[in-house]
């Protein structure tokens, strides 16, 4: 960055210079604490992802917290109904900034096959979603890829909203 020339004591072995945002992003993306909002069969795949076979801890996101105050990533895995949507909204508000949301599976993203009166047709109508993981349910590899996409957003390789679904014009 050129600082080495200005401050001679920074030059040499044992030092490197970078931006503070990059350091914070690097720390955040490798220590995600997910909140598992598991309401249906996608939660089973999420548990599988966290277990040793797929081992989400390789990417630093194994510390599942059941308190929204302690987490920074909500994984909405499963159907969200009329009665559950206010709960999810409240949990979203209780998570401290910065926070990210993964909408896992067809039901959370679009309502899936449940086009019925109590089923929310996509949680992105009521909370902001960063990454959608498709599948019914998605395989653990898909969820891992979703977490890696979140990491790209965190350390600035991707813009927020880059992985959201394209809007379809109603005709």
């Amino acid at each position, binding site marked *: 960055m050129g600082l080495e020339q200005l401050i001679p004591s920074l030059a040499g072995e044992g030092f490197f210079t970078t931006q503070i945002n990059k350091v914070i992003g690097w720390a955040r993306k490798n220590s995600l604490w997910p909140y598992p909002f598991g309401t249906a069969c996608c939660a089973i795949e999420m548990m599988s992802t966290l277990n040793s076979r797929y081992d989400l801890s390789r990417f630093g996101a194994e510390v599942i917290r059941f308190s929204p105050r302690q987490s920074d990533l909500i994984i909405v895995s499963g159907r969200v109904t*009329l*009665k559950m*949507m*206010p709960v*999810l*909204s409240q949990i*979203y*508000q209780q998570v401290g900034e910065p926070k990210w949301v993964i909408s896992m599976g067809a039901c959370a993203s679009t309502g899936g096959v449940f*086009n*019925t*009166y*109590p*089923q*929310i*047709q996509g949680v992105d*109508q*009521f*909370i*902001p979603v960063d990454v959608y993981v498709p599948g019914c349910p998605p395989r653990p590899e898909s969820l891992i890829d979703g977490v890696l996409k979140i990491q790209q957003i965190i350390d600035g390789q991707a813009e927020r909203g880059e992985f959201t679904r394209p809007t379809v014009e109603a005709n």
Partner: protein
Amino acid sequence: MSDEQPPEKKLPPTHDSHETNQRVLEENQVDHDQLRTKLAGKFSDIVSEYKQTIIKTDRDNVIDVLEILKNDPELDFKMITDITAVDNMRRADFDPEKRFTVIHIVYSVTRKQRVRLETDVSEASPRIPTAAGVYKGAAWIEREVYDMFGVEFEGHPDLRRVLLPDYYEHFVLRKDYPLTGRGERDNFIRAEEVE
């Protein structure tokens, strides 16, 4: 293709055809004559449909019938399996006086037999006396029937919704309620806008 007649509507098989090719379950081997004497004057008909015994009764007698079924030592139907309802609105022979059919299913644990009670209630006043005084467990099941069909159980200790939220305005299993609802599912405030 134009002169082809539309296919004739296939009627469901009558219970007679079922009588011939289905085995009677042990739980359905109910003595109708015994029921007829025990419940004399309190039912309109006792029939066997799909090899299952159905007692047809009415609002005024349904609790008396349940009491006899439960407390008579020779009948001994001590367990209530289920209470449910049917909305008859889409039937060809629909009669507003018989909009809903409330069904009680009772089981005798000692005699291993099961009978069903059918009670018609009207569209204008969908009310039926509660069975919670006879079977304690009926109170919970009746709440669910109220939640889904809006059938009110008179004398129920705590008739509230059980599955849907309290603010819900409609009874969702009625045939005139659309499957996708009336916009309740789209009616939330976006979380980031609340603050």
